[in-house]
């Protein structure tokens, strides 16, 4: 057990019992409303991609011919495992384990960065194969969808690293467990969006 782990029975569930009209944390509810609206954003982008995928490209390669499924599978697995490290960070801060909170938050950011780096590499390969952003409709829809997702992951990394820095400065104590939980909600959402993209965009022909 870490030396920083202290009595946590009183703070194991710091988000329960809020003095709000719903009895729930407004911050947490706000994040869920935001995530609900994000479903519409990604729903629209996925729909656009599905429409344009059906159309034969007038020039340049078809997107389906460029996929490297084994490579993308590894990227997907990395992002999936980052959800595990994120939930372990939330678990650690709830039991006042500051050291492990930082370790898991940083590991999550590192896994997320690996995913984004993989995505940049994939884009580079596609570009070298002749598929630029404006080459054809398939390419535009693909880059817009996966690019938007990549930006979301990048924003998540900024949130995670900010939390690590605040923790190192002693400003992310157990009383801020809900903040880490809310960052976690965002991170898991980014993961579930990729679960859909990986299946619908890459695996279903």
């Amino acid at each position, binding site marked *: 057990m870490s030396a920083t782990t202290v*009595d946590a029975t009183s703070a194991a569930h710091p988000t329960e019992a809020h003095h709000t009209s719903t009895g729930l944390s407004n911050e947490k*509810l706000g994040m869920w409303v935001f995530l609900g609206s994000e479903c519409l954003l990604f729903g629209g982008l996925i*729909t656009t991609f599905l429409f344009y995928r059906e159309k034969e490209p007038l020039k340049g390669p078809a997107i389906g011919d460029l996929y490297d499924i084994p490579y993308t599978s590894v990227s997907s697995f990395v992002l999936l495992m980052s959800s595990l490290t994120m939930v372990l960070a939330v678990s650690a801060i709830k039991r006042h384990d500051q050291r492990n909170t930082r370790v898991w938050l940083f590991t999550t950011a590192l896994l997320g960065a690996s995913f984004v780096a993989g995505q940049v590499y994939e884009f580079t390969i596609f570009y070298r194969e002749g598929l630029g952003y404006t080459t054809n409709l398939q390419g535009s829809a693909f880059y817009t969808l996966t690019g938007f997702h990549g930006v979301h992951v990048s924003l998540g990394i900024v949130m995670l690293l900010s939390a690590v820095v605040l923790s190192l400065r002693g400003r992310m104590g157990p009383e801020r467990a809900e903040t880490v939980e809310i960052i976690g909600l965002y991170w898991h959402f980014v993961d579930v969006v990729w679960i859909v993209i990986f299946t619908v965009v890459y695996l279903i022909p």
Partner: protein
Amino acid sequence: MTTTHEVEHADHEHGHPTDRTYIGIALVLGLITAAEVATYYVDLGALLGPVLIVMMIAKFSIVAGWFMHLRFDSNLFTRVFVSGIVLAIGVYLAALTSFHYFSS
């Protein structure tokens, strides 16, 4: 001082999963992902689409339910999130219908 085991036990009593449970869930997610990737190498014919969709929904539900704590939190959070998903699917169906009927 409360030990990690006692905290995990307390969590369990509150219905929240322990770290060990989370690791088990991640293993299940990893196995489903491996099965998804396997469909790329095995010819499932017409079953490919439905099989992949089922596995996708399973992974989505597991992450949302366990990692995002929807199983344990207020139903209001679930309703808000599901509303977004239903609206997104509605957008897809509306666009699909529009293009089917109004495309030249």
